Each structure stands twice: as C-alpha cells, then as structure tokens.
C-alpha cells in the first residue's frame, strides 16, 4: 500500500470539483500512457479579467491522480491565467503534503493539464515538453528518460557522473545497476563500452588540449570566480602550484582549518573538472592530511 498523506486520502475519498462542466471555455486533456492516467481539466475563465472563475476535472486514474486533480482545481480557482501558469507540480504535491516518489508524475500531469487548458483558451497549441520513462531512482524520483538524455547530452560515462548531473543514484544506491544499464546502452551508441573500473585511467590518457600557460591561466580564472563566495565567509584561496593533474592551493583565513574544508575543496575540484573538462585533484599545499579527502571519489 502506498504511503499516502492524509491530505491525499482526503482529496481522493471526497474529491473537490469533480465532474463535467458544461460552460467551460478552456479545456485541457492530458495523460501518461505508462501509468494509464488521464485527466480532463475544465475552466471557466472571465474574458475581461482573465481570471479563473471555476475549475472542474474528470480523471481516469489512481488515488494520487484523482487527489492531484482535486488539489489543482482548488489551487487555481480565483487565479489569473498568468499566475496559474506559474503553478508547478511541486506546488500541487506540497498542497497534498507530499506524494510518494513513484507518484510525483501525477502532479506533473496536473500541471500539464493546466498548461494545456490555458493554451486551449488562448487558441494556442500545447505541446508536451517531456517524455516520462520508468522510474530508476526512487530516492529522488528520477526516471530513465531524464537519465538517458542527460548522459547523452553531456557525454557522461560513469555512475558518479550521473549522480553529479541528475542526483539519480545519490541516495540509497540500490538503482546503480539500472544506471549502469543506461550507461551501457548510451555508451554503445557512441561506440564506447561501459566499464565501472576504467574511469580514472581513461581520463589520465586524455591529453590536455591547453598549453601549460593557458591551463594555469584558466585555473586562476576559475578560482577567481569562486573567490567571492569564500570571501563572503571571511576566507580565501590561492593557487600555489600546478603539477600535472594535481593543483596545489592554500586555504586562507576562515577557510583554513574550517571543518567544512574538505567539502569546500571537493566542491571546487568538481567545478574545476567541469570547467577544464579533465580530471584534476585539488590538494591543500600545507597539509597532506586533507589531500585524501579531496581526491576524486
């Protein structure tokens, strides 16, 4: 049994604004074929003020789909169309005191119905902007399509990459097999083979395209960008040396010896790698003790 909030149950057992509306002047019909949920949202919009005077729904769907539809109609009644367009699926989920991760798509369906209905009122054609796949990461409700698209767009090749870019797999880690399967598939498309072990080797093999001077300048520019944040916390960072993949830095002021130092360095390292497009290690020059903590995970 799903762990539904009392609010979800309330809106399922006694839905608000259910049933057809004969004098609707805005209608949105949307659905999710995977789940077999479908929703018709009907609005009565005042043409002079463009406010939603009344909203009703009909839903073919599960408990949370019906509850999400009911919540949506309650949220948008009295809103202007422009304000209504700002309602997010998270707003719907929050109104219901949350939805199980597997059911978040029900709130997405509500938001889409709203967009479709408003497009219908304005004589526009509504197009669905996302495709929904099988749920992979249950901790953060990330589906296969999102992971696949992200892997493809950013040429990711490791589970760690996927965690950094999408959060998928960053929780309980049970879905790592599923993420590896997606990586295997997408890597095969670009003629590569997924291997869980060769990450660092592959990165080391790749020669840097920048000259040493260009590279050091680039590193300094990246540090410049980070500096204001550190200074806000009364700290600072300076570049000491660059030796191949290892970048030695000095943590200054409040940053020095800060309990969060390792985490700060890891964040800087991550940013550095993304900007340089290569694997690097950030090491505080004065101490060896933290270099381990800041090395690549």
């Amino acid at each position: 049994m799903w762990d539904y909030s009392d609010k979800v149950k309330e809106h399922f057992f006694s839905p608000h604004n259910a049933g057809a509306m004969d004098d609707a002047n805005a209608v949105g019909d949307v659905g999710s074929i995977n789940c077999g949920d479908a929703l018709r949202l009907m609005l009565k919009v005042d043409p002079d003020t463009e406010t939603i005077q009344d909203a009703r729904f009909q839903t073919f769907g599960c408990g949370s789909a019906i509850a999400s539809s009911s919540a949506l109609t309650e949220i948008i009644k009295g809103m202007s169309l422009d304000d209504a367009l700002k309602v997010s699926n998270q707003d719907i989920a929050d109104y219901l005191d949350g939805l199980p991760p597997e059911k978040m798509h029900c709130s997405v369906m509500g938001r889409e119905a709203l967009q479709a209905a408003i497009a219908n009122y304005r004589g526009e054609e509504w197009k669905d902007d996302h495709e929904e796949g099988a749920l992979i990461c249950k901790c953060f409700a990330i589906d296969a399509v999102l992971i696949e698209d992200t892997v493809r767009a950013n040429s990711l090749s490791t589970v760690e990459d996927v965690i950094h870019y999408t959060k998928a797999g960053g929780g309980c880690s049970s879905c790592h097999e599923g993420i590896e399967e997606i990586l295997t598939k997408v890597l095969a498309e670009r003629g590569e083979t997924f291997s869980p072990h060769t990450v660092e080797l592959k990165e080391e093999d790749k020669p840097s395209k920048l000259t040493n001077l260009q590279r050091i300048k680039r590193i300094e520019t990246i540090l410049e960008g980070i500096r204001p944040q550190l200074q806000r916390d009364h700290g600072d960072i300076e570049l000491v040396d660059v030796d191949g993949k290892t970048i030695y830095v000095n943590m200054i002021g409040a940053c020095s010896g800060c309990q969060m130092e390792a985490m700060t360095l890891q964040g800087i390292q991550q940013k550095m790698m993304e900007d340089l497009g290569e694997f690097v290690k950030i090491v505080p020059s004065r101490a060896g003790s933290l270099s381990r903590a800041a090395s690549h995970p």
Partner: protein
Amino acid sequence: MDGIYLDNNATTRVDDAVVAAMLPFFTEQFGNPSSMHSFGNKVGLAIKKARLQVQDLLGAEHDSEIIFTSCGTESDSTAILSAIRANPDRKEIITTSIEHPAVLALCAHLEKEGFKVHTLKVDERGRLDLDVYGKLLSNRVAVVSVMWANNETGTLFPVEEMARMAHAAGVLFHTDAVQAVGKVPIDMKHSAIDMLSLSGHKLHAPKGIGVLYLKRGVRFRPLLRGGHQERGRRAGTENAASIVALGMACEQAQAAMHYENTEVKRLRDKLEAGILAKVPRAFPTGDVTNRLPNTSNIAFEFIEGEAILLLLNKFGIAASSGSACTSGSLEPSHVMRAMGIPYTAAHGTTRFSLSRYTTEAEIDRVIQIIPEIIAQLRKLSPYWGETGPVTEADKAFAPVYA
C-alpha cells in the same frame, strides 16, 4: 483482524493448527538438525516428516525429490540456473509472456548474458499455441519454464502435455506451480515434469519457505553451495519451524482439495456472476472455463484499479489489481497486455482470490458493495457519461499522451 480478505493469490492466512505445529521449533526444539545430540535429532525427524507430507501432496515417488528452499522465487531461479549450468552447450530457453517476474526477470537477465529466450505469446484468453511451442523445441534449448496456473487470471496451462513434448525433444521442463499446488490435484510420479516450484505462503504456511521438486535422475547444479543440507543441493541451515509448518499445511491442503474445487469454486462463481449482473461494461479476463477454482479477475472498463482498491479497502475488502499504479512499476500488468486487453480496461482489472476461509456472507457483501464503488469512480471518469460510456469514448476523450 476484521475485513474480507479476497487476495489469497498474493498470500494466505497461516492456519492456526499450522502455527501451533511450528511454535515449539523456536523454543524447546531449537536444535540444529545436523547436530549429533538429541537437541538436533528431534528436529531432523520433524523435517523428515514434513518432507513426507510435501511428497504426499505432490504425489512424488521419492521424498528425496523434495528440496526445501526459502521461497518460490528461489525455487524458480534454482531450477532455471541449474538447467543452463548443467547444459552449458545449450543457449536457448523457452518461457511464456505471462510468467511471474521470478521467471521473466531472470530470463531477461539471462538474455543480456547471451541466452536466446523464446517467449511464447498468448491469445486474448491467455492460451498458448502448442504448435508454435513444438517448433521451438530443439537440442539448443536448455530448459522450458511454464507456469502451471497464472497468478492474475488463474488460467491453467497444459503443463503435462508440454512437458511430454519437451521430453520427446530431450529438453528439461520446469513449472512454476506456486498458484496451483493445493488447488489442483498433482501426481508427480506419473508426470513428465522434471522440476516444480511451490511456495508455502500461498497455501496457508508462513512466508519464507518454498520447495523445489526435482525428479530423481534429473541433472542438477545447486544455486547455494557450502553445506550438506538437502543432500548438498541447497546448502544453508534448514528453516526448521517453517518446514514443519509447510508439511502440516500440505497435509491440510490435501484434505481440503475437494472443498477448494466444489465450495470455494461455487463462491467464486457466485461472486463473479453477482458482480457481472450488476455492473455494466465489466468482463472476466483469462480462460474462464479452464482456471483455478478460487480466482476471478474482472476488468472494469474506464476506471483505474488502484482507485478501486482504495475504495474497497475503505470497506475492509482486500483485493488486487493489474493496474500500473499498484505495482510501483508504472506499467500495467504484463499479463493483461499480453492478452491484448485495451488499456482503458487493463488498468481497471481487479483480482478476487478466495480461500477455504472465505464465507458466503463475505461474498454477498462484496457483491453488494462493488457496484456502488464502480459507479462512484465512473462519475469521475472522462470516458463515462451519465449512464454509460460517452459515445465513441476513444474519440471524445483523446488526451495528449506524455
């Protein structure tokens, strides 16, 4: 707990006598059956008795053909993996599209490892085409795995005939009989079936105990190694209390076999007829003339199954559904899809599975409540008008699908 439990294909209540039989094995009879001392010896004897009780229900020729496992899924995995390991030169498997995930997911995994899996299709009533099956049998096939009865519809497969066909082609045959054992008579000593899986909790024994029946002489490779238990075919200290319980449950199932096929069947038929008489646009799925006596699976068109279950639950009635949302997988039942049930009906399929504890009063109550629930949900459905489906429902409501 009060309530009307019609979800016995999911799991069953452990019989009071079965609980009583197993309890001493947690306390005074806690010994390890492998030990030399008398603490262990008595447990060993109790397991021996339980093995005979299971043997009796299955009609097996030898008690050594019974291997205790932890569940039906383990039995399925053991059987299929054993067959392919024992026949390393055979790289094909035959199964059906409506197997339990215990078999289907394993086969899908083996496919990734290079095996060729032939998945037999079913028709709109969930029946197989044995001509197609016969043509797939060859010396390249390591094992055929076909369920005896489908868990969602109760439809029975002709496993005996299929096992004979497999034997004629020199191919091993395994059946997942988790839903069938205790509900249909089984006589393994006169059967061509090589391996059979059963699960305790489907027949009023506890969860966490299963059996793999392995016909004497069938080549076998264990899944778990590391002990002499079950004659080295399933290492690991025996789950003594549950084995004793399963033995007792098998004895009871044998005694109740006639009741299951007469009285339980009568109640099932009454329930189905009662619902269909009162609810328009509803139909039973599967092969209704050839199914388990306790199962009725009804598709209620234009509404969604999870919503039905939530409302039933409010009235204390437990059933299950083939809808996507109840599984957590976001996919509607693969069984309903395999039978080509349209999704407006597949998502509304509801399974009622009875047991020998189901009463006439409970059935009457369900017949009375179901029509109200269905009507209530159809009022919310965009496919449903005042009194019936909107004209040309597919066209009147054609949402943009994500």
